[in-house]
């Protein structure tokens, strides 16, 4: 299906649109929630930081907004960007419209890596964080290597690759479930949240950490797609590198939020609908789309049956699974990516 | 008249695949259907066996309208022999042929059914690999097994859909010889869709040449396989020789 190349204006407009939505969502999300504060109060809390003299929010509002909601929202943005970037990169690198960190099993392998690190190192988030993150990253890289290897076989149709990825997901879910029973009742709840995705583990210092590592990975990725010549002429090699960097991004996200499904699948497709197939634009902008999707989902998850907080991954699955079904039905023979 | 086809039409939605098809067939006769790809040969065969339902026309089997017959009744009279394909699940040659007994079976296969299968296996000389897996034998042997299956149905008419397309020349001759032999010995009739004109010439009593969903020419091989017909139906300039009995076609160049 060929589209006339959208003009640069359209792309810019789309980016602007996305940024506006993000800002709007941040605002709405920060002022909505279970705690008993009015919208006014919430806005006061936000603006108080910038204009300390003009606004006097209640203590509750300040704590709630700055310690609970905003960190959560910012984490959602960061994770959404990561997943969108990673998903778009994987779809381009593997030429597979069904690919995403979740459907290829890379998210789950990374989580498994964190488990291994925790069990071996006995550390928790904060202390041996580097080690855990590193292990997750290594596991993600291994998974990516396997996926790349399989994708390159002649018999590996896109469907088969994803099918195998999903079987890996089922297998690792089973192992994780079993492991969590070893941990006892408390571990059960925690593990489920981990497997379904959760934005609660956020606090401002954690976020700084997250943002830092993301930027570290995003830079090589952007270089790979905008100035591939830096890395040589072999296109296959460039895609391989991109795949690896994407997996690292996934590992980072998963370490902080658990496995959130389908953002990496949805974002690139939505992006491509609007701005076509040029991967140099699709990949970065998918990041923005991912952010929008994720904080939007989180907003719904937090409020739809308040005071209960649904795990955000459930909502993303709800959105993403029908899309997957639709894609499959359309036989997904569309070529992905250009250049 | 064993089989009478009258004005049969078939198509999907607005496209027409078969138009105005009429033909007769007697007992103990081999009718061949030739024509370029997409002419409708396979479709016609499938309409005759009611695998596909034509949207116009009548097909009479021994005077009975097949659209009024149940599938089981048709299955007892007509045996369909498709081109071979691999099976998804394992099955022995014996069980494959046993399937041909389905129109006669109850829930369980009886001693009689097993005997019948053995009989036809012997007839076609493939007893040796009765217990082997269908997927493991060669293409030619697989084709023979499929013919055997149709025979196990105790059908009076065999419908063969391009039985020789995937075979080497030895197996092509074997399969066609077997078919001709059965027709002669058992008084069965056969309709064969075939793409090889020389095989058609040699083994058929009557020939239909199809093109674009219509019957282009009908008659004995000699009258149908002419230079003119071949040029018009296939778009090929050919030489037609004769060995005294049957014509032989040597294609020269596209026109």
């Amino acid at each position: 299906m060929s589209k006339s190349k959208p003009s640069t204006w359209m792309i810019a407009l789309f980016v602007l649109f996305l940024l506006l939505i993000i800002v709007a969502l941040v605002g709405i999300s920060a002022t909505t929630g279970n705690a008993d504060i009015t919208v006014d109060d919430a806005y006061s809390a936000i603006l108080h930081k910038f204009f300390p003299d003009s606004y006097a929010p209640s203590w509750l509002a300040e704590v709630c907004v700055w310690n609970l909601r905003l960190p959560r929202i910012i984490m959602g943005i960061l994770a959404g960007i990561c997943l969108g970037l990673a998903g778009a990169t994987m779809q381009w690198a593997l030429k597979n419209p069904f690919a995403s960190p979740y459907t290829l099993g890379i998210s789950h392998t990374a989580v498994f890596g964190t488990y291994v690190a925790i069990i071996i190192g006995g550390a928790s988030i904060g202390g041996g964080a580097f080690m855990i993150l590193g292990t997750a990253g290594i596991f993600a890289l291994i998974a990516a290597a396997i996926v790349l290897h399989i994708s390159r076989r002649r018999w590996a149709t896109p469907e088969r690759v994803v099918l195998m990825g999903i079987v890996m997901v089922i297998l690792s879910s089973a192992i994780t479930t079993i492991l969590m029973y070893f941990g006892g009742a408390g571990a059960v709840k925690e593990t489920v949240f981990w497997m379904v995705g959760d934005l609660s583990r956020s606090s401002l210092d954690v976020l700084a950490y997250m943002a830092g590592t993301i930027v570290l990975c995003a830079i090589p990725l952007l270089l790979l797609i905008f100035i591939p010549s830096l890395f040589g002429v072999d296109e296959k090699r460039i895609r391989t590198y991109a795949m690896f960097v994407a997996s690292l991004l996934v590992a980072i996200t998963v370490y902080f939020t658990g496995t959130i499904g389908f953002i990496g699948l949805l974002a690139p497709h939505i992006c491509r609908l609007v701005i076509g197939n040029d991967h140099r634009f699709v990949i970065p902008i998918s990041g923005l789309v991912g952010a929008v999707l994720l904080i939007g989902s989180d907003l719904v998850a937090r409020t739809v049956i308040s005071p209960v907080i649904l795990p955000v991954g459930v909502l993303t699955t709800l959105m993403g699974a029908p899309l997957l079904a639709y894609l499959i039905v359309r036989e997904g023979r569309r070529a992905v990516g250009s250049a | 008249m064993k089989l009478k086809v009258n004005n049969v039409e078939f198509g999907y939605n607005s496209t027409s695949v078969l138009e105005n098809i009429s033909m007769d067939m007697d007992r103990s006769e081999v009718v061949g259907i030739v024509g370029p790809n997409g002419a409708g040969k396979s479709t016609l065969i499938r309409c005759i066996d009611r695998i596909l339902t034509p949207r116009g026309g009548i097909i009479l089997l021994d005077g009975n309208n097949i659209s009024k017959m149940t599938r089981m009744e048709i299955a007892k009279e007509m045996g369909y022999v498709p081109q071979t394909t691999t099976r998804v699940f394992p099955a022995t040659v014996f069980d494959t042929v046993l399937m041909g007994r389905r129109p006669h079976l109850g829930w369980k296969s009886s001693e009689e059914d097993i005997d019948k299968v053995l009989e036809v296996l012997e007839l076609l000389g493939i007893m040796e690999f009765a217990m082997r897996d269908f997927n493991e034998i060669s293409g030619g042997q697989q084709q023979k097994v499929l013919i055997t299956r149709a025979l196990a149905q105790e059908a009076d008419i065999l419908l063969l859909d391009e039985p020789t397309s995937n075979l080497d020349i030895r197996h092509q001759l074997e399969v066609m010889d077997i078919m001709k032999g059965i027709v002669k010995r058992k008084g069965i009739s056969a309709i064969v869709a075939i793409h090889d004109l020389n095989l058609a010439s040699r083994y058929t009593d009557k020939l239909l040449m199809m093109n674009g969903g219509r019957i282009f020419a009908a008659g004995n091989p000699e009258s149908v396989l002419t230079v003119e017909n071949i040029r018009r139906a296939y778009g090929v300039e050919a030489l037609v020789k004769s060995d005294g009995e049957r014509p032989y076609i040597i294609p020269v160049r596209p026109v």
Partner: protein
Amino acid sequence: MKREESRTMTAKDIKEQYKKFIGRKIFFVFFFAALIIIISGVSTTLGSYPITVKEVYSIIWRGSITILQNLDFIIFHGVREFSREYFTTEEIVVWQLRLPRIFLGIIAGIGLGLAGAVMQAILRNPLASPYTLGISSGAGFGASLAILAGAGIVGGKYLIVGNAFVFALLVSFIILALSSRKGATPETMILAGIAMMYLFGAMTTILQYFGEAEAVKEAVFWMVGDLNRASWPVVTIILGVLACCAPLLMLKSWDLNVMGAGDETAKSLGVNVKRIRVITMVVSTLLVATIVCFTGTIGFIGLVAPHMTRLAIGGDNKYVLPVSGLLGAVILISADLVARRIIAPVILPVGAVTAFMGAPLFLYLIMRRRREYW
């Protein structure tokens, strides 16, 4: 191929070979049945409550006699009253906890194995199974919806099964519609099925958050499946459905065999392909839905059992169907045995164990299909 020795093969030889072939299949029927009894026997004797092996068997023996002697009491006052009156604590543990669980495992295993074999046959898809086609997940959603809507109190268990059936049927029809499209490979069908699984799984999980009970625990039950909710009434219901559905499906074995040769060949052999497909799909879906209502979505039994069966006895569905069922029961009660004991006293959900065993096999099956490409 050597022609000399094969010339000595007569019809009688083949007949004998064939009979031996059949004999082998029947052997496996009894073999697996025996295996079921053995494993059940072992399983009953293991558990957290300390009862010796000898005691267990004597409890079963005496208990059976007591039950038979007091059937009227049971009918009048119900099973619970009966056990309270006549049974000691040990006897209750065996009769009310362990045996129902084992029986549930057997019956559910038979049902899932049978349904899996049927689905693989009608869809001509070696990767098909109630779980991988998303049918189990649809049933799970229907069941939790009904439970949430209070059906458990109002309409009783039948409403729950009914609703589970409706949603499972929905998925079945989507799968059937997909399978008839041009270009539908087995992988496509399964991917669509898995997408359904995710979809209904997510919806089921959300439902749990509306409920009173612990949402997380409930969610795990539905998504992973386990045998904890076994009780004699449950066993009876499933047994009843199985008793109706199984003969129906097995009667169609020959048609299933013929369909394996392709739709066209099947039609030419007198099989009404469309009708058979719909009927068997509906019946096997009913079976699956009933089971899932009480066990959650236990995965891979319906995938693994038929394949292992076919490895042993070939592809004739007349035997594959029942033997798959029996093997399914063997796998399920073995998995449950592992799930119960491996980190005693914690009881793992049996679905986690079956997934752990089944997923690698699934992977192997997918990889093996690369032959299709050449």
